């Protein structure tokens, strides 16, 4: 293909990516170094309350926004450098906590607590999603053709359903005296309150993520299984390979690019965990960086939004994802170089 044709072919995609992906990221990166504040005048305010004999008056100096000629609040934007990153990371507190070997103090800092949760969530759910997806794909591939269609449909249901609704569906089973909690109480003979414990909620959130994403891994692996080279399977049979060995040395190497693909998608998605926190109302126990970003963007009591802090938090989320993906991307690049 001529370069000119190739360029014309991909230009619309590149343009859209520049507008909708690159430009917002650059804008966010720039905003993380600036702070916009309302311009205020410090004014003396006297507040009087009724009292016996005489009223009680208190005089205070309070900030008051200064409006412009049109009556709108005036703001000023200042360059603050890395200050917001420092506010999010709180390096001095983190250093003290590490020096004193005090993990509780470290995890009490929003960023580090969120990082602990996101990494735990990502690395516990990843093998479960890959393992369960692969297991379902292999079992469905070995089942009778007549039942494959309905089984594939049912297996895909958790992935089709809207994530927040899915999280609520799981929550309703376990909340308070939900039917699953009642069943567990019946069999264990003890009173169970899952939503009273942070760790139990975390496990439930991981269960939901695996339940929701394993069908995606399943459908990818199932498609991959349809293309397994039958000559390789026959060669393995002639060599006396048992089922496990055929799986280990023929099927899994064939599926490896798909396993890497699912891993990449899952790492990106799980590290940004958000919907589980909302669906399970777990923000009192665990928070992710994306949840913190959303929190910073919510107006505070004075109506201000911490946009620069949210931008810094968002940039740190992106850096985290890039760090997680580097080993896989390097591997993919090496494989690509090897196949050329």
């Amino acid at each position, binding site marked *: 293909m001529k370069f000119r044709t190739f360029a014309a072919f991909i230009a619309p995609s590149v343009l859209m990516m520049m507008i909708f992906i690159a430009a917002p990221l650059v804008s966010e990166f720039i905003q993380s170094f600036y702070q916009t504040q309302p311009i205020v005048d410090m004014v003396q305010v006297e507040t009087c309350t009724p009292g016996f004999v005489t009223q009680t008056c208190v005089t205070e100096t309070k900030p008051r926004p200064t409006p412009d000629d049109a009556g709108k609040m005036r703001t000023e934007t200042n360059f603050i450098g890395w200050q917001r990153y420092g506010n999010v990371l709180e390096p001095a507190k983190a250093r003290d906590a590490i020096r004193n070997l005090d993990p509780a103090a470290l995890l009490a800092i929003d960023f580090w607590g969120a990082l602990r949760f996101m990494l735990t969530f990502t690395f516990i759910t990843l093998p479960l999603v890959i393992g369960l997806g692969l*297991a*379902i794909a292999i*079992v*469905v591939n*070995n*089942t009778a053709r007549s039942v494959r269609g309905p*089984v594939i449909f*049912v*297996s895909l*249901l*958790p992935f089709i*359903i809207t994530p927040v*609704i*899915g999280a*609520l*569906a*799981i929550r*309703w*089973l376990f909340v*308070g*005296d*939900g*039917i699953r909690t*009642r069943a567990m109480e019946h069999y264990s003979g003890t009173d169970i309150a899952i939503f009273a414990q942070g760790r139990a909620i975390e496990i439930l959130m991981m269960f939901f993520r695996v*339940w929701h994403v394993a*069908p995606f891994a399943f459908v990818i692996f199932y498609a991959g299984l349809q293309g397994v080279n039958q000559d390789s*399977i*026959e060669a393995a*049979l*002639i060599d006396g390979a048992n089922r496990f060995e*055929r799986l280990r040395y023929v099927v899994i190497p064939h599926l490896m690019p798909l396993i890497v693909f699912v891993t990449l998608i899952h790492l990106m998605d799980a590290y940004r965990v958000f919907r589980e926190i909302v669906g399970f109302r777990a923000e009192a126990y665990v928070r992710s960086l994306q949840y913190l970003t959303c929190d910073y963007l919510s107006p505070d009591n004075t109506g201000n939004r911490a946009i620069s802090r949210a931008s810094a938090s968002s940039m740190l989320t992106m850096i985290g994802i890039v760090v997680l993906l580097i080993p896989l991307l390097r591997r993919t690049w090496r494989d690509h170089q090897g196949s050329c």
Partner: protein
Amino acid sequence: MTIRAPRQPLSLRLTLAASLTLWCLIAAFPIFWITVMSFNVPLDAFAASPWDVSLARSPAHRARG
């Protein structure tokens, strides 16, 4: 000549069928339950027996007549 994989032993087939059935139950039940709940009142979510709720025989149903 095509070499065929040896037929799966009965125990393996039963295990695979049981695992698949269990997975289908786990995959479908929350969605089935939320569908059932969409036709019920919130009180039914805490009923002692899911069967009673599913078959519209829960105390909340009886109270509504």
